């Protein structure tokens, strides 16, 4: 089979076209947020938000409410809960996150097993790209567009707040609103990823692209570009792999992101040591 054929064949299918567009959209939005998640050290917080979306989705499904609404409320509640647990009990931040993460996730499982809504838990957790309907696609695109638009509009304030929170507060930026907006954005990105990579493997796209960008970027702009490139490439390559090997798309997309991260770090090591070696021998 010729290369062009290999590349084009999957998209003879309607569901694959839908899946590709959805996956690329998710790749863009998650890898954009990834830059802040990685720089600010929110990887574990992103992990907690994605897990905590589950009870919101389950409750919304059980009550016949929009899944997006349930997931967003749950995600923000969890991020607030982490702050409350941390300040009221004075446990460490990672401990507070661990408690909230497992607690909310367990609640989601209990709700699902009790009410048995018409959603497949496996698909929620790890995505089911074959089932992306036009409506799902539309939800993903609209949510992602809203997140990207808000993120771009508030970029300088977001960077200032996450880089130096005290400065942001003192200079009069609305710190707590910015924090909430960021948590909302992460929650919405998780929900947007529901169909393609699922709410658990989206963590890979919220962490790995930014981490890859950080390895090589000389400035913030470069970091965003590299991160988005890694996110989109992971989505596309992962989808091909999923198609040809008939395996879970969430798995292949997350694995591709992981592989790209290691590839970039190895290339970086080699180019750096290549540059340094002659000097060392001088």
């Amino acid at each position, binding site marked *: 089979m010729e290369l062009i054929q290999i590349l084009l064949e999957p998209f003879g299918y309607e569901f694959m076209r839908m899946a590709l567009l959805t996956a690329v959209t998710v790749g863009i939005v998650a890898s954009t947020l990834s830059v802040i998640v990685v720089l600010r050290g929110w990887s574990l917080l992103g992990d907690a938000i994605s897990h905590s979306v589950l009870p919101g989705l389950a409750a919304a499904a059980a009550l016949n409410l929009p899944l997006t609404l349930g997931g967003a409320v749950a995600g923000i509640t969890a991020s607030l809960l982490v702050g409350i647990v941390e300040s009221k009990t004075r446990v460490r931040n990672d401990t507070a996150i661990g408690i909230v993460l497992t607690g909310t996730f367990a609640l989601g499982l209990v709700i699902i097993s009790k009410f048995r809504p018409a959603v497949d838990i496996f698909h929620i957790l790890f995505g089911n790209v074959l089932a992306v309907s036009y409506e799902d696609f539309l939800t993903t695109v609209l949510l992602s567009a809203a997140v990207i638009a808000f993120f771009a509009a508030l970029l*300088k304030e977001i*960077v200032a707040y996450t880089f*130096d929170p005290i*400065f942001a507060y*003192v*200079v009069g930026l609305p710190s707590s609103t910015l924090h909430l907006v960021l948590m909302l954005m992460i929650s919405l990105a998780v929900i947007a990823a529901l169909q393609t990579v699922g709410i658990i493997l989206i963590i890979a796209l919220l962490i790995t692209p930014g981490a890859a960008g950080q390895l090589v970027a*000389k400035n*913030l702009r470069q970091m965003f570009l590299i991160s988005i490139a890694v996110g989109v490439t992971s989505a596309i390559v992962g989808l091909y792999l999923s198609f040809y090997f008939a395996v879970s798309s969430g798995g292949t997309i997350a694995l591709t992101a992981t592989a790209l991260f290691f590839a970039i770090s190895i290339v970086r090591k080699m180019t750096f040591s290549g540059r340094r070696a002659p000097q060392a021998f001088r």
Partner: protein
Amino acid sequence: MLTEGLRAENLTVVYERVVALEDVSFSVSHGSMTAVVGPNGAGKSSLLKAAVGLVKPFRGRVTVLGDTVEKARGRIAYVPQREDVYWDYPLTVWDVVAMGRFKAVGYLKTVGKNDEKVLKALERTGLTSLMDRKISELSGGQQQRVFLARAIAQEAELYLLDEPLKGIDAESEDKLLILLHELKQEGKTIVMSTHDLSSTFELFENILLLRNRVVAFGPPEKVLTSENLSAAYGSDRVAMHFADVRRVAGWS
């Protein structure tokens, strides 16, 4: 005409069951330079944070530039401690200094690459040639000057600096203190915390010697006595060390 830079009245700050500040009262005039001196845990950071409203007083109150803290927000610049910012950000010197202009520029607008106030702040702090460098690649002294430049670009009236001398060499310390002195002469109020007794205190109008309570407040030569210092630092050795410093400074 503003006469008062910063005033605290019976300021008490409590965290859980720990009393960080108790009944702290003092007032510094606008256009003066004050060092808040005391050992680690003496409540220096708490005082600065109360002055910007980051911690709420348990009792008492703080007045900034003759206004409540809330109203004065924006006219205050805060130079954070090293640990308070996230150094992984691949930001350039220009990026950070430009932050000082964010509030003035407003939402949905960016700070122009040729923004005069940013360029001027860079020039004053001697950072023009370093403006495209990543802040993580700078020396400790240069990093402190970046944050001071941001405060200058912000056109603040009150400058609060949390331990700016920590971990920087003597030359950088001199540069920083000279810059602060210049700002003071332009009528800005400077309040800086330090736990390091070897700092140069001659440039300061007032020293607030703190150990959760006010041990002493006033001009350096009145405050920095061995009795006061051993009361603040709890060690006679510190006081003895300081007796030498006083002699060198020509105070005794």
